[in-house]
């Protein structure tokens, strides 16, 4: 056949039909590997199925005893009392108030830090600040809980003397501080990913740094920013330990951050710490609460994905 | 040739400019040749000075067109029909310039002939007749270039044989005159040169036509059929 091939010493040209036929052994092993890898990927689906199964099946038991209407409209949450009420709004209010406080701190601060780092800071500042921010993102939440309870609350009490020992405000503020690094770091990544050529284009038109940042870089990185905000929201809503430690565990239907209140997550912790028998209605309440939490985070997540698709990076 | 326009208008303008210049040069050369023959045939040698002087315009055209050509090649990297056009033009221009030279020679010859005042031999109309044919060939060749008309170009090539034959007849006739009256020899020789120039004009016109066929079709038909 080909001269170039037969000319090379170590090569014996095999028969074409042999060479081009499918190699059976190779196919089998390739298929097997693919199957194993697929199984691993399937585990994540199983996890979701498990979550949904556990939450829904226990919640079904729960809703056999408590009507959904009561669950959504009752303004008391006293599942462990004799006069049991199951008004989830009580827990949701705590969750929302603490989250709003947190985000009111985290989103502006995180964004400003991100813009500063990405557009203003020189390379040295960025090289130090960025890893430190990422480090902060790793601090365990229980430590923040400790911080909220033992440092921030006393501090706040100096300003607002009527502030109780447990409050949504101090928990929320600390939660906000906790979320800042996430938002700052992710937003900064998104803005860094905007090609330099885009900035050069803006500067070449004679614009200033801030104008470039706000009118060119931020719009270009918008989907990344949105993603970081959504992640921040999810964090805030799902955060447990800071609230369990610093916001108190008293179910309290309130929109006032100066009061203590339980959130969905801190309620679950509270129940888990006690010793409720498997199968009791009290045991089932945590699954109903968990399901509610899951639905809320899911909603934000879907919103986030929609935003991301809507404002896909266009550069 | 290719009716669509280039992406680059400038390129189109360059090519159009080139072709226009070639046609202008052709027109000038044709006029020179016509005037030269007229000067010879009519004996009105007043125009000779103009013709000789106008030759610098022909030469100028040659230089300008060659420069434009090389600029187009350097700046536009022409290919296919554009390339054939440009390369064909460099060849055509050489032929046109030679025709200009021949016209000048005819004019100078005419002056010499008429200064001697001997125009009995051979009848100027005979020369004029052949010259008209050669100039017609030139005219038609330029026409075929303007329209890249292959059929017309082929006619020019065909016509050259006739001019050649008539040229030989004229020279034979002149030799007869010379033998009959040796005093006419000087003048006759001048007329021989004029005839020769006329014949050359026909040859160059034929060359132009051959280049036109190359430009239009990419076939190089020079020397075809002449040799093995």
């Amino acid at each position, binding site marked *: 056949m080909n001269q170039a091939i037969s000319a090379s010493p170590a090569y014996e040209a095999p028969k074409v039909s042999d060479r081009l036929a499918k190699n059976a052994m190779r196919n089998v*092993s*390739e298929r097997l590997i*693919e199957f*194993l*890898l*697929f*199984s*691993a*990927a399937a*585990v*994540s689906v199983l*996890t*979701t199925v*498990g*979550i949904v*199964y*556990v*939450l829904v099946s226990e919640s079904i038991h729960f809703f056999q005893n408590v009507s959904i209407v009561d669950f959504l409209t009752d303004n008391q949450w006293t599942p462990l009392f004799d006069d049991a009420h199951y008004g989830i709004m009580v827990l949701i209010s705590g969750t929302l108030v603490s989250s709003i406080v947190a985000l009111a701190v985290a989103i502006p601060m995180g964004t*400003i*830090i991100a*813009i*500063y780092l990405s557009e*203003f800071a020189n390379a040295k500042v960025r090289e130090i*600040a960025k*890893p*430190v*921010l990422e*480090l*902060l993102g*790793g*601090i*365990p*939440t*229980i*430590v923040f809980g*400790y*911080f909220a309870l*033992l*440092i921030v609350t006393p501090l706040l009490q100096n300003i607002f003397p009527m502030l109780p020992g447990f409050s949504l405000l101090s928990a929320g503020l600390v939660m906000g*501080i906790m979320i800042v*690094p996430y938002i700052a770091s992710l937003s900064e990544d998104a803005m860094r990913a905007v090609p330099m050529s885009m900035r050069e284009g803006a500067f070449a038109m004679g*614009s*200033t740094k*801030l*104008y470039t940042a706000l009118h060119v870089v931020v719009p270009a990185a918008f989907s990344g920013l949105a993603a970081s905000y959504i*992640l921040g929201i999810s964090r805030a809503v*799902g*955060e*447990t*330990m800071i609230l369990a*430690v610093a916001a108190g565990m008293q179910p309290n239907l309130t929109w006032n951050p100066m009061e203590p209140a339980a959130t969905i*997550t801190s309620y*679950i*912790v509270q129940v*888990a*710490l006690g010793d409720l028998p498997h199968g009791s209605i009290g045991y089932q309440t945590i699954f109903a609460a*968990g399901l509610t939490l*899951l639905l809320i*985070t*899911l909603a934000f997540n879907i919103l986030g994905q929609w935003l991301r698709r809507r404002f896909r990076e266009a550069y | 040739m290719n009716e669509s326009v280039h992406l680059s208008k400038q390129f189109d303008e360059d090519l159009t400019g080139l072709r226009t210049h070639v046609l202008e040069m052709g027109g000038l050369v044709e006029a020179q040749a016509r005037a030269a023959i007229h000067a010879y045939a009519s004996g009105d040698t007043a125009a000779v000075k103009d013709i000789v002087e106008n030759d610098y315009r022909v030469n100028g055209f040659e230089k300008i067109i060659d420069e434009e050509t090389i600029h187009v090649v350097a700046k536009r990297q022409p290919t296919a029909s554009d390339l054939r056009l440009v390369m064909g033009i460099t060849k055509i221009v050489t032929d046109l310039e030679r025709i200009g030279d021949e016209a000048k020679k005819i004019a100078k010859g005419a002056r010499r002939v008429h200064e001697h005042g001997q125009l009995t031999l051979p009848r100027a109309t005979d020369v004029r007749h052949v010259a008209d044919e050669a100039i017609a060939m030139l005219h038609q060749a330029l026409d075929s270039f303007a329209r890249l008309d292959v059929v017309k170009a082929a006619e020019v090539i065909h016509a050259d044989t006739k001019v050649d034959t008539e040229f030989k007849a004229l020279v034979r006739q002149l030799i007869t005159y010379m033998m009959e009256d040796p005093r006419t020899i000087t003048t006759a020789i001048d007329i021989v040169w004029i005839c020769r120039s006329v014949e050359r004009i026909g040859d160059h016109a034929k060359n132009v036509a051959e280049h036109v066929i190359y430009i239009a079709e990419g076939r190089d038909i020079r020397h075809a059929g002449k040799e093995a």
Partner: protein
Amino acid sequence: MKALTTEQIRSVIARGKLKDSIFQAVGIFCLVVGLLVILLLVGDMLLRGIDRLSLDFFTNFASRRAAQSGILSAWVGTILVMFVTALAAVPLGVAAGIYLEEYARRNWVTEIIEINITNLAAVPSIVYGLLSLGIFVYAFGFGQSILSAGLTLALLILPIVIVSTREAIRAIPAMIREGSMAVGATRWQTCRYHIIPYAMPGILTGVIIGLARAIGETAPIITIGALTFIAFLPPVPFSTTGEGTAGLFDWVMSPFTVMPIQIFNWTSRPDPAFEVNAAAAGFVLMAMVLSMNALAIWLRYRLRKNIKW
């Protein structure tokens, strides 16, 4: 059209530059606030807990008396749980990442897996606790053991490992893949010779960040009902106890506690003496987490420079 005069342009520029300076000041302020808060936190914990940070603190079990309490069972428990977590999450996560990037065809199954993983990453950790409570603790009967806790945290960090694996793989240009396939390599050969080695730094970083996250997780472990007061260690394999020789894997079924739970326990005690313990333990936990994160960040910056395309 009127042209702006030089003076007009200069005043526009001056205004723009003023805004720049104001924003710069605000930016520095925010950054400093963020960093200061953390410094304050670490400093405060260190100051409060410094007295308790002795060797005894690490070798004592928890006790009713604050001064004698230690974190022995907590740190041992943490390490064992992490071991289980890593063992479960790393192979699964990496394999899943490879499958999704290298093998998966674009069809509805893949689509579901994809959506699923993005959503799992956003599920609050406490929900994993509930899952584990329902499945591992009760349905599988693992009880409130190291195994249950390890698997829970493994599921929790699985999305992190998968996502970082995928990102690491995605950073490998398609042309490397095509280059390999074009000389006749199979898909698995391509993965083994190229994709996995080149993605390794990224995968490693993801794994460490995931484990650092898992170390600090409290809520899911509380939910499965980890004990807060443990005055013994899980059985060492092949060691002899009163109930006979322990098997190789007996420890995985042992009750346990972990660092965050110990801290939580101490913070919720009314006796302020335990706050000192909490501070000390918090400092230790933070040191563990931060050093892991620092390692991951260092790895990423370091190894990223080594591979060029």
